[in-house]
């Protein structure tokens, strides 16, 4: 299977999203292993270099997931990813789960710029793919992520059996939220 998104680059709201490359994965591993990131992950285990390379090798042969490096002013600041929940290719999947983490040491992590990658990627999924619904499972103590998702138009729809907060986003709510955020993110 070929990764259909492999050559795709997305831009908007001041940032660039480019497919993750082999050169990026060590930096991503370090971010992912940082306690500030790990504490909000379902899987909080430490990832070693071998596991990271293995993961990347598997990822490059999948079209149901897409990991993108986020860059601002030529500086890598984080990762955003989408996963089809039905194992269908991301391009035709109707329900997709999105994730994001920013460099824990970056000054942009707690700034409004953190909204840019989600605005760009979600717009692509709703308007250029066949996505009808985005889903997020958030740890209940991750209030920052819940607030962040709410600003993007997500609504809380319940909790799953493990106590994770379930949030859903449809295109209409996203488009409305995007208009509001774009009033401030004036690039």
């Amino acid at each position: 299977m070929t990764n259909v998104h492999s050559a795709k680059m997305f831009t908007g709201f001041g940032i660039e999203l480019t497919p993750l490359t082999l050169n990026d994965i060590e930096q991503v591993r370090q971010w992912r292993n940082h306690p500030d990131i790990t504490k909000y992950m379902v899987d909080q285990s430490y990832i070693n270099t071998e596991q990271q390379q293995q993961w990347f090798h598997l990822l490059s042969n999948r079209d149901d997931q897409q990991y993108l490096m986020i860059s601002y002013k030529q500086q890598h600041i984080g990762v955003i990813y989408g996963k089809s929940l039905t194992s269908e290719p991301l391009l035709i999947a109707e329900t997709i789960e999105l994730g994001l983490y920013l460099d824990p040491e970056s000054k942009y992590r707690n700034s409004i710029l953190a909204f840019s990658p989600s605005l760009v990627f979600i717009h692509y999924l709703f308007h250029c793919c066949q996505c009808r619904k985005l889903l997020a499972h958030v740890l209940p103590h991750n209030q920052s992520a819940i607030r962040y998702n709410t600003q993007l138009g997500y609504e809380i729809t319940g909790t799953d059996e493990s106590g994770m907060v379930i949030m859903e986003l449809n295109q209409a709510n996203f488009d409305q939220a995007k208009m509001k955020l774009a009033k401030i993110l004036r690039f």
Partner: protein
Amino acid sequence: MTAIEKLKSAFVTALEISEQEVNDSLSYSEHPAWDSTAHMILIAQLEADFDVMIDIDDIIDMSSFNQAKATLLKYDENLSFE
């Protein structure tokens, strides 16, 4: 309301913190309430309260209470935060 009162009020609203916590040492890396959503609400509040439209680079660089003062002074030199 004076400029400093308006500024403090904007921080109280955006970060959902007490006025006592709004001081010159308040910065994004020092307070857990300062996240991307708080930053977004803060900017919207400042633009409305001070009737300014802040450049995106200034918005992204606004990472402390002191920086907010400096930025607003850049847009209105008649302001005083004394």
